[in-house]
């Protein structure tokens, strides 16, 4: 397995990340071909650094897909990690979330980012997930 070349290039990771993002964007196109895929595979195989950069963005790309499921109302997909989350509740939450999201964007940003979650909209309470 080849190691990323450390030739003193300035911020090599940033360049690899940009390349990985460009690959991901191209793969999303309608005219993506087997030839394109083979070229991408070659690039990935050239360095483990290429792979991890691409995996990281690809995982991000896939995460955004959950929002798509939410928008189309197929809440089961959104909550597919959930064992039994009633579809109606999920959909209601989806609507509430979008309403809250819209409201937050309409109001001038008077609070810092970390307080976005703590607004009283919808009466959601912040649940501490860690001790």
């Amino acid at each position, binding site marked *: 397995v080849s190691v990323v070349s450390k030739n003193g290039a300035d911020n090599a990771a*940033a360049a690899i990340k940009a390349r990985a993002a460009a690959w991901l*964007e191209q793969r999303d196109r309608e005219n993506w071909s087997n030839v394109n895929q083979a070229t991408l595979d070659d690039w990935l195989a050239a360095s483990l650094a290429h792979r*991890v950069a691409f995996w990281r963005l690809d*995982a991000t*790309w*896939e*995460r955004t897909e959950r*929002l798509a499921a939410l928008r189309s109302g197929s809440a089961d997909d959104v909550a597919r990690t959930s064992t039994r*989350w009633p579809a109606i509740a999920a959909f209601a939450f989806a609507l509430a979330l979008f309403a809250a999201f819209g409201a937050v964007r309409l109001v001038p940003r008077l609070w810092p980012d970390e307080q976005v979650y703590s607004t009283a909209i919808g009466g959601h309470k912040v649940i501490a*997930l860690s001790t």
Partner: protein
Amino acid sequence: MVDTPDNDHESLDPRHSSAGVKVSDLRAWFIHEVLPMEAALTQYLHHNWRNPNDIEDLLQDVYVRVCEAAIRQRPDSTKSFIFTTARNLLIDRVRREQVIPIEAVLDLDSLGIAVDEPGPDRNVMAREELRRLQAALDRLTPRCREVVVLRRIEGMQRRAIALRMGISEATVAEHLANGVSALADILYGEAVDFRRQK
């Protein structure tokens, strides 16, 4: 998270294909066990390295090192393995570059870094995931966010997006690439906000 591996039949080490780790396995391990540590790892690197411009490269080097090791043998504890790797990398860099780090804080606990994932209440996790995605989207520039939303949430084709927004398809592509890159930095690189709020 859906795994759509690029070339999952491929073995990473063709010379030892029988013992080789499948790319898809390494990918799944990296995404599910390593990437969730990115915020804590980034914090750790910042605490222990003077030049913030090096952090992105250091992060990449840690990822490459842990994956190289995982090809040979999957570590028992991903968390401690990642931070041991990071520490060793910093020590190597100090030796090579003859620079002195800010301080030799190598003890995770002393940094108060929250690494352990919260308990698996799946409903809460699903909702948190949506909140995080929404919040991350909201951090993109307006045009970039619009492109990402139209493509990923509305499922529109690039040409339609370009027409609707009055921009070229090349610009649409640029926004998509920049968008996914920025989202990755927010979703993986930053500590979850409700932790900071406490």
